[in-house]
C-alpha cells in the first residue's frame, strides 16, 4: 500500500511539472513581461523607463530561462522561470500586485471557501443520491418520467439564474437572510445558508440524472435478478445490493472533487461576498493580477491530482477486488 502510494505520488510529479511549464509558457512566453507591463501601465505614452521600473518592481527584469550574466547555480536560479514558476513546487507563490503574500492569503481564505463548499458537497451528495434512488425505485413509471423531465429542465437553467433569483426572492422580498457578507463566528450561519441551498439546487438536475443512470445500469445486472429471485424486497435489493455496488462509479466522480472544495466556487463566492479563494480568483482576474491567477492554476491542479490519488485509495476501501500493487 505504502509503495503504491509512493509510486502514485511520484507519477504526479511529471504532471505537475507539465502544468508548471504550461503556465510558464502561457504567462511569460506567449506574452513577454514587456507586453504585460504595457498592458498594466496603459498602452498610451508608456516610456521604456516605466516598463523597466514595473518589471523591476514585480521581479520580471530577469532572463526567462538562463541567466548568462550570472555564475554558478545563479545561472539557473536567477531567472524568471526559477523564481516565479519553479518556486511554486515549494508552495511559495510570491507576492500579488498589491504586495501581499499569496501563500498567506490562500491559507486565510481557505476557511470561508470550505465553510460554503463542504456543506454544499455533503448535503448535495445525500440529496442527489436519494432523489436518484427514488427515481430508480419508481423506474419506468410516470413518477420516474416526471423526475427525469424535472432534471432536464433544472439542468437547462443557468446557475446564474439560481443565484440571482435566490438572492432576489429570499433576501430581498422575504428578508430572511442578508444578501451578502460573511462572518467566521457562530453568527455566520445566516450568511452561509442561502449559498449552500442554492449550490445544492444548482446541480440537482445533472447530478441526480447521472446517479440515476448509474443505478439503472447496476439494476440490470444478473446479481440483482438473483437477489430478487431469493425473494428480497425491492427496497432491500436497492439499498443493500445496488447502492453498495454502485459505489464504485459514484466514487470516481465524487472523491476527485473533495480536495477541490478548498478552491471554493467562483460564482457563489463573488455573488455572496464571501472572502474565499473563489472570490480571490475573480478579483485577481478582474484586476489582471497574473501572479495570483498563476498561483490558483497551480494550486487547482495540485488539488486535482491529490483527488485522483484519493480516488484510487477509496477504491481499495469499497471494492475488495481492487488490489493496489
Amino acid at each position, binding site marked *: 500500500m505504502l509503495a503504491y502510494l509512493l509510486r502514485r505520488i511520484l507519477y504526479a510529479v511529471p504532471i505537475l511539472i507539465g*502544468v508548471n511549464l504550461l503556465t510558464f509558457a502561457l504567462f511569460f512566453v506567449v506574452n513577454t513581461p514587456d507586453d504585460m507591463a504595457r498592458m498594466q501601465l496603459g498602452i498610451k505614452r508608456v516610456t521604456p523607463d516605466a516598463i523597466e521600473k514595473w518589471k523591476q518592481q514585480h521581479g520580471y527584469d530577469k532572463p526567462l530561462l538562463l541567466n548568462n550574466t550570472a555564475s554558478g547555480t545563479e545561472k539557473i536560479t536567477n531567472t524568471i522561470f526559477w523564481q516565479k514558476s519553479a518556486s511554486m513546487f515549494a508552495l511559495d507563490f510570491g507576492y500579488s500586485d498589491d504586495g501581499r503574500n499569496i501563500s498567506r492569503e490562500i491559507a486565510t481564505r481557505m476557511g470561508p471557501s470550505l465553510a460554503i463548499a463542504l456543506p454544499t458537497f455533503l448535503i448535495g451528495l445525500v440529496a442527489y443520491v436519494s432523489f436518484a434512488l427514488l427515481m430508480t425505485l419508481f423506474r419506468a413509471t410516470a413518477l420516474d418520467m416526471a423526475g427525469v423531465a424535472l432534471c432536464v*429542465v433544472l439542468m437547462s*437553467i443557468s446557475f446564474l439564474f439560481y443565484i440571482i433569483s435566490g438572492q432576489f426572492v429570499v433576501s430581498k422580498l422575504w428578508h430572511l437572510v442578508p444578501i451578502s457578507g460573511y462572518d467566521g463566528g457562530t453568527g455566520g450561519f445566516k450568511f452561509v445558508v442561502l449559498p449552500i441551498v442554492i449550490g445544492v439546487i444548482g446541480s440537482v438536475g445533472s447530478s441526480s440524472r447521472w446517479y440515476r443512470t448509474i443505478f439503472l445500469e447496476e439494476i440490470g445486472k444478473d446479481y440483482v435478478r438473483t437477489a430478487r429471485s431469493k425473494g428480497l424486497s425491492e427496497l432491500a435489493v436497492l439499498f443493500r445490493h445496488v447502492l453498495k455496488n454502485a459505489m464504485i462509479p459514484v466514487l470516481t466522480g465524487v472523491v476527485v472533487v473533495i480536495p477541490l472544495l478548498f478552491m471554493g466556487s467562483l460564482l457563489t463566492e463573488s455573488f455572496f461576498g464571501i472572502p474565499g479563494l473563489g472570490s480571490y480568483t475573480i478579483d485577481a482576474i478582474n484586476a*489582471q493580477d497574473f501572479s495570483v491567477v498563476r498561483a490558483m492554476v497551480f494550486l487547482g491542479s495540485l488539488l486535482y491530482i491529490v483527488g485522483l490519488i484519493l480516488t484510487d485509495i477509496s477504491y481499495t476501501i469499497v471494492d475488495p477486488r481492487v488490489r493496489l500493487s
Partner: protein
Amino acid sequence: MSFMPVILWSDALVFLLLLSGIACAWYVRRHEHLLLPWRRVAQSATAMVSLLVLSLFLLAGLLDTLHYQVALPEKNGGETVYSPEVLSVFDKLLTPLRTHTEKTYSAPLAVTLYTKESISDVHGNVLREYPRLRYGGAQLADIQQQGNDVLRRGLSGALAGLAAGLLIALGARRRLAKRGWPLRALLIATLLISAIIGMFIDLATSYHVLGTDKVGQDVLYLSLKSIRTGLIIGTVTTLVTLPLALLLGIAAGYFRGWIDDVIQYIYTVLSSIPSVLLIAAAVLMMQVTIDTHPQWFNNSASRADLRLVFLCLILGVTSWTGLCRLLRGETLKLREMEYIQAAQSFGVSSLRILTRHIMPNVMHIVLISLVMDFSALVLAEAVLSYVGVGVDPSMISFGTMINAARLEMGREPMVWWALASAFGFMLVLVLAANLFADAVRDAFDPRLNRTEVAA
C-alpha cells in the same frame, strides 16, 4: 444604396461548419445503415419538436452571420467609403427594433419611461411625470388605451401567425413529411410557435415587447442578437475539439506504447487544471496580445469577433480531453476485435485500418458527446462573461446582457425584464438542445438501449 459583404473570422468558420454539416448529411442520406439511427430520432416527438425550435434559432443565427457594410453617401465623387458599422441581414430584418431606441429603461409593453422626468406642459408648468416613450405606443393618443391596444394587436398577431403556421404546416407536410414522423406533435408545435412569433411581430412594430435596457435598446433585439453568439460558442468550439480528440484519442488507443503515454500525459496535464482557471489564464493572455496589437483590427466588430473566435479556440483546447479519453478507451476495445485482427493479418496499413475500420465505429460516441457538449457550452458562455473572461463586452451575448442587468437588481421597482429575457431565451435554447441530445443518445448508444429495455 450599395453595400459590401464582410466576412468576419467567425462567419468563415460558421460557413465551414455549415458546409461540412451538409456534406455529412449528404453522405448519411446515401447510406442506409447510417440513416437508421436518425430514423429513430425522427420518430421521437420531443426530438422533432426540439429540432424545430433549434432550427429556428439556427436560422436566426445564420441570418445574423451574413454581414455587410453599407456605403456612406458620397461626398465629392471620390471613391466610395463604407460605414465602419458592420451590419447583418438579420439586423436589416430587425431595423425597427434596432433603431427605435428610447432614452433609458422602460418596462415590457410600456408606453412611458421607467423613471420620472421634469416635463413642462402647455401652460409652462413643470411637472414630475413619467414621460411618454419615443416609439413604444407612440401611435396611441391616450395612455389609457394601452391595455386594449396590446390585447387587440396581440390577438390579431397571434391569429395571423396561426394562419401562416397552418399554411406552412400543410405545405411542409405534403413536401417533407415521412411515414412514422410524429406529425400531430409537430403540427401543434408549429402552430404554437407561429402564433407566438406572430404576436411578437405585431406587438413589436409599436411596442418594446420585452422592454428596453439602460441605454434604451430594445431587449428583444438584444436577445435575438445573442443567439448567434451562443450558437457560435456552442458549435465553432467543435472545430477545435473534434480533430484533436479524434486524432489523438484513436492514435493513443490503437498504437499504444509510447504514443499512448505521451498523449495520456498531455491530456492528464490539461485536464488537471480546473477548466475555468485555465480558460481565465488563457483569455487574460489573449487580452494582452489583443491590447498590445491594435493595428490588427480595422474596426471594433472585427476585434470583438476575433476575441470570440479565440474564446472558442480556448474552450476547445480545454474541453477535448474528455472526448479523447472516451475515444481512447473505445479504440482499445475495438483493436482487439476479430475484424481488426483480420485486417491486420491481411496486411492492411494502419492508416487504412484507422480510417476505414475504427473511425466509423467510434463516430456514435463523437456525435453523442458533441450534441451533449453544445448546451454546456452555451451555459458556460454566460458564466465566463460574468467572470470577465468571456466575449468582448461590446459583443451582444446572453452573458453580457445578464452582466449588465445584474447591476440594476437593487433598483426599486426592480428592472427584471432584461434578466428574464436573457434567461428565458437561454432556457429555451438549452432545453431544446438537451432534449435533442437525449434523443440522439438514445438512438445511437447501443449500450443504453439495452439498459433502458432491461429497466
